């Protein structure tokens, strides 16, 4: 009765084998490495970059113990931190000659030391959370009402232009909160305007009201359009953050959306938190100015000499100098969007800019007065300006829709659009949660978590072996298997392991032993009642099963609640807790039964079981003690 069919043993063996395989990478530890990834969307890290890196290392007299190129990033592993830092400098010099023009991000990282064949199986060590490896965590809240207001502002400008084109006379267009209000003298114009809005502005919905002798049409964003605006604002902010973080040289930054209006940024290994915060919170400004085309300015552009009074010299991205006037025509505040695209007539690559109402008015006046002259679009970051582009004005541009074209490839157009957009955030952001963990604290936390699990495990195992003898040994082995499987599953899922997660690991082991205690006690009880050893084992496992299931389900309910409603540290705890309960069902019941069956199952005339003292109350005893 206590025998497993072969397939059950096969399942156990497969589980153990897979478990060990995926747990293995955790034992190899991590080696210092240098990671190269693209700093700009247009740049690819490919074999040519690998060749450059190899050459740079060779000339620096360094050898990487492994060099892998995967998922658009190149990772070089080194034996010591010393050569890692030297290598980083060498690679940085080779790939990024100009620090202001970072096409590649060269960052220090840690790589698993596990051999190639394990990595090929996608077996990687557990992903350590920030509290274990050190780093910074930010949660940023995007100010969505501001994004919506900005959108309303730009739509108001567009409506004004369209109505002028159609010769519709209005008594004033104004933005009130997120609504656009248009006043009319008579209803017929109102009706015409309403039709116009319905035709041309699909994102708007209108309501009308009489106000004194006037008629008022108020247009608001449709809910789905509002959602789209918010979505775009969030995406743009994420892009901006990506660009900024690339400068920090972080190996594996996590930048992701959380909820509808939040962004989580995690920068593992970053120690200079002040700089990180500075970069995240930085506001880049965009300015449009006129290029000084006087002969002195021309001369200064060419000769690097003195610039005329009232002008400044900035460099274009290709290194060419441009002398621009100090007077600012427009700032990025007036720019609502920038998209890459194509010129309608020439099919040249172009960047389409959208200005808000105020910007459009100023832009029209400036372009009318300066046809044939050049204007420059400058981006200021870290107090340093750069000319993004300096096109020639061909004609008066009204309506706030500006197209920059000529001498641009599609890639460049993309880049310019991104720069213009990314330069400014779509909506202001505020840091609402911040966590910084120093690297030494991370290492200490690992040691603390590890010690807690190890000593707790040893204490429980020692007690079990002592109290339940051979059955205790089985239970302890089952508990070890539970730990193995839990670590394997966590490594497989690449779930983030945090200190609370390690605490959950310890706790779940303490709880998992419950199942074995239940079984062992039950077997003892059966023996006490005088049942034969084989029958006692059978009954013990069978009867304990229902109880184990019930009790694990209740624990699992609590775990799921934590998973569903928890955030941050609680979630890390809950993931390990839930997984641990699931693996414990396998190890404590199925696996330990396998061990017992293997040991006792074949003995037909089993006289005694090594499960510690089976005590019987005197008088009722069958006078036999194991």
């Amino acid at each position, binding site marked *: 009765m206590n025998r497993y069919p072969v397939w059950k043993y096969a399942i156990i063996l497969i589980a153990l084998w897979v478990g060990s395989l995926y747990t293995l990478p955790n034992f190899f530890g991590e080696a210092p490495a240098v990671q190269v990834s693209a700093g700009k969307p247009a740049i690819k890290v490919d074999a040519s970059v690998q060749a450059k890196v190899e050459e740079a290392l060779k000339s620096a007299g360094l050898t990487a113990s492994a060099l892998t190129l995967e998922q658009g990033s190149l990772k070089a592993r080194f034996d010591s931190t010393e050569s890692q830092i030297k290598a980083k400098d060498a690679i940085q010099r080779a790939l990024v000659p100009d620090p202001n023009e970072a096409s590649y991000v060269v960052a220090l990282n840690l790589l698993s030391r596990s051999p190639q064949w394990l990595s090929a199986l996608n077996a990687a060590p557990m992903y350590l959370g920030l509290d274990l490896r050190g780093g910074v965590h930010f949660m940023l809240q995007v100010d969505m009402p501001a994004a919506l207001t900005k959108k309303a502002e730009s739509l108001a400008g567009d409506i004004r232009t369209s109505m002028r084109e159609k010769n519709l006379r209005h008594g004033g267009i104004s933005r009130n909160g997120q609504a656009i209000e248009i006043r009319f003298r008579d209803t017929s114009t109102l009706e015409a305007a309403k039709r116009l809005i319905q035709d041309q502005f699909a994102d708007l919905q209108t309501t009308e009201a009489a106000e004194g002798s006037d008629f008022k049409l108020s247009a608001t964003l449709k809910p789905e359009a509002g959602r789209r605006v918010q979505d775009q604002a969030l995406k743009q902010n994420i892009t901006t953050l990506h660009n900024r973080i690339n400068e920090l040289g972080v190996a594996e930054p996590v930048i992701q959306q959380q909820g509808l209006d939040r962004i989580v940024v995690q920068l593992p290994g970053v120690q200079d938190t002040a700089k990180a915060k500075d970069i995240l919170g930085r506001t880049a400004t965009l300015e449009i100015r006129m290029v000084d085309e006087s002969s002195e300015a021309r001369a200064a552009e060419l000769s690097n000499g003195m610039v005329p009074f009232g002008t400044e010299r900035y460099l274009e991205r290709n290194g060419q100098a441009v002398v621009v006037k100090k007077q600012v025509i427009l700032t990025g505040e007036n720019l609502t969007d920038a998209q890459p695209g194509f010129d309608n007539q020439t099919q040249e690559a172009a960047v389409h800019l959208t200005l808000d109402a105020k910007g459009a008015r100023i832009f029209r006046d400036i372009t009318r007065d300066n046809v044939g002259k050049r204007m420059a679009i400058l981006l200021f970051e870290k107090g340093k300006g750069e000319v993004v582009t300096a096109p020639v004005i061909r004609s008066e541009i009204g309506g706030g829709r500006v197209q920059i074209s000529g001498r641009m490839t599609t890639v460049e157009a993309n880049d310019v659009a991104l720069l213009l957009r990314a330069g400014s955030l779509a909506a202001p952001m505020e840091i609402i949660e911040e*966590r910084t*963990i120093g690297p030494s604290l991370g290492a200490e936390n690992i040691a603390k978590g590890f010690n807690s699990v190890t000593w707790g495990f040893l204490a429980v195992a020692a007690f079990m072996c002592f109290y339940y003898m051979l059955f205790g040994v089985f239970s302890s082995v089952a508990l070890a298997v539970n730990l193995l499987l839990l670590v394997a599953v966590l490594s497989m899922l690449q779930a983030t392991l945090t200190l609370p997660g390690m605490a959950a690991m310890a706790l779940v082991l303490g709880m998992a032993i419950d199942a074995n205690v239940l079984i062992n006690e039950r077997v003892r009880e059966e023996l006490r009642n005088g049942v034969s050893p084989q029958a006692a084992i059978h009954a013990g496992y069978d009867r304990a099963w229902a109880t184990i299931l019930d009790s694990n389900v209740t624990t699992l309910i609590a775990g799921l609640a934590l998973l569903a409603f928890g955030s941050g540290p609680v979630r890390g705890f809950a993931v390990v807790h839930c997984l641990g309960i699931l693996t414990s069902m396998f190890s404590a019941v199925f696996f330990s039964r396998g061990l017992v069956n293997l040991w006792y199952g074949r003995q037909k005339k089993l006289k005694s079981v090594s499960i510690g*003292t089976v005590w019987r109350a005197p008088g009722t005893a069958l006078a036999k003690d194991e």
Partner: protein
Amino acid sequence: MEFFKIRRDIPFMRHALVFNAVSFITFLAAVFFLFSRGLHLSVEFTGGTLMEVSYSQPADLNQARERIAALGYSDVQVQNFGTARDVLIRMPAVKGVSSAQQSDKVLAALKEGDASAELRRTEFVGPQVGDELAADGLKALAFVVVGIMIYLAFRFEWKYAVAAIIANLHDVIIILGFFAFFQWEFSLPVLAAVLAVLGYSVNESVVIFDRIRENFRRYRKMETVEIIDNAITSTISRTIITHGCTQLMVLSMLLFGGATLHYFALALTIGILFGIYSSVFVAAAIAMWLGIRREDLIKPVKKEGDPDDPNAGAAV
């Protein structure tokens, strides 16, 4: 080896009234302290900034306090954390000052006093996040309570579900009472511990209820009280050994886990100890008063000739 050489069923239910009175009084005390002192909520719930700074020699707290006070921040708590060299600073959120500026300023001020000051960890939580966390915590608690009740009502009967939840919620309140009384810091990991304990100590009640159900089947002539006594007596060794093992683990966390896991482990310890008490003495007693009967659990037609039960129909 055997710790529990019990000759006869222990008449737990005879003293049920006393046990329940004890529970009730502890419960009232816990509620009283919760209301009179309140929980000492961590920065995660209240919003504000927390900094952990370590020095190369034992830190001078008074000096640190003065330096921070000189910056014009009020309500700042400065205390040792784990060792004498580590200092924990808690500051409420200040309007108009970003967390980054706040922690940088404080660190600069501390470094002026002692150049060895090193920032180990900062945590800043905006007030809106704190409120959400508190709300989410309550939602999680409600989810656990409802989930467990539905499961138990489905597996056993509503009376058992009610008894188990009352007994175990009383554990939760008592843990919170301890945290309020000693003004221990109630943080997110502690909340996780509390909920984990809730799930865990329901286990206890489930094990006993399982035994009660089994006894109802097995011993047809026994009184309900005797059935309960027998169920508790025969599971008590398992209860104590299991909790002992879990406690060993928790103890290891308390010893090796450091200051971060301290309150987490402490909450678990209280939860485990009271978990034993409430499952053994309280849950069954409440179930008894709710009037559990053999007929509630055993559907006569279906269970009559249970082939799996070798003792079916046997009477003792």
